[in-house]
């Protein structure tokens, strides 16, 4: 069945470098540096990436960072909590805009 997303396309990510190798190389150098151990461990960064992957709903990223989180030593309990963090922030982001709704409603209501 034809779909927009194909799991095998993840392995072709590097093809994006063909259009502009210089930008691709800068991006990958930056990407690699971001995920290297620093003040945060590689395992912690993978969990953050997993949560963000769910927030931006990227199936490629979810695939990649589920595997990466397991390979960095996280377990399903920790990964589930990371997804809930993404869920809470997404939900909270909607809810906090309710203040805007209330401001507008207050302004135009009697």
């Amino acid at each position, binding site marked *: 069945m034809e779909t927009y997303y194909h799991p095998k396309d993840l392995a072709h990510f590097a093809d994006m470098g063909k259009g502009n190798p210089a930008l691709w190389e800068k991006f990958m150098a930056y990407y690699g540096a971001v995920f290297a151990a620093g003040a945060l*461990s590689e*395992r912690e960064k993978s969990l953050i990436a997993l949560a963000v992957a769910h927030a931006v709903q990227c199936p490629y990223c979810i695939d990649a960072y589920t595997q990466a989180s*397991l*390979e*960095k030593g996280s*377990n*399903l*309990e920790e990964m589930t909590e990371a997804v809930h963090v993404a869920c809470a922030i997404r939900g909270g982001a909607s809810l906090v805009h309710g203040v805007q709704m209330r401001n507008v409603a207050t302004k135009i209501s009697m």
Partner: protein
Amino acid sequence: MPVLSRSLKARGEALSSAAEQVRVLQSREGFPRFEETMARTSSGPLAATGLDVLQINVGKLCNQTCRHCHVDAGPDRTESMTRETAEMCMAALARSDIGTVDITGGAPELNPSFRYLVAESKRLGRQVMDRCNLSVLLLPSQADLAAFLARHAVEIVASLPSIAPAQTDAQRGAGVFQKSIGALRLLNGLGYGREGSGLVLNLVTNPVGAFLPPAQGSQEDRFRQRLAADHGVVFNRLYTITNMPISRFLEFLLESGNYEGYMRRLVDAFNPAAARSVMCRTMLSVGWDGRLYDCDFNQMLELPLMPGMPAHVRDFDPASLRARRIVTGNHCYGCTAGAGSSCGGAIT
């Protein structure tokens, strides 16, 4: 996926045959053969550089039926080293300068000659390691086992895949995590894992699934912190070991549709530095029937030593064995991926 209660062999599965496993490993398209990768990276062919460890697999009997077991061990297996073969192993040890005897299985402690092997190896002045599944220490028939191991200062290499009970039980069977913690407390009570005791307790973690193990150092820190805080358990070192695509882990890979992806992961993570340090270069593996192999994985795939080498421990000849060529196959990608993998954990 549930933990199995019976071995491949007891279930009559085709994959219980070593020849069938080799056929699967060598016939899949899309991967370069291990020997080609070794040649391309100027890493091969593999040859031994010494003979430091004699790994004795005393048989396939085990009180657990772990999902990833490359031995296809379990309570229904009966293959077991005889006293006569055990004595041949000790005679071979006596005429060599091998420093370490590494006893494995199955649950090696269930072999009637296990304690003879330990005591005789110690009498010969060699270091002894016991690859222990932990729960065996709690069996009523093994009530004096932990004290025996402590008395002989046997180094214990114990399996504990995860600090998460659900992950450990998913790989090793329901309730195994709690039993493992109980056994670790028993060992700690005897001084194992405690500084200054001289009793070494190392843990082994295998991934609970079709992925590579984490970095050994950071995972050791997490295990140390969590086991101490949550369970009051201490240990010396943590070894991370890659699951080999052999026997029941191969069955899991094929049944779950993970075979291609896992092999691709291993091949893509090939590390020439790991290939230079693989354990087969300094060890010799003996099967329950006395036959000789380059490693425990070759033993399970029934891949004997190179032609011209002694085939059986009765013909043990350290001079020829310490510089032998090593038999390889696509399963060897398991030991050369990422940080590499050995019975002593990561190798780079």
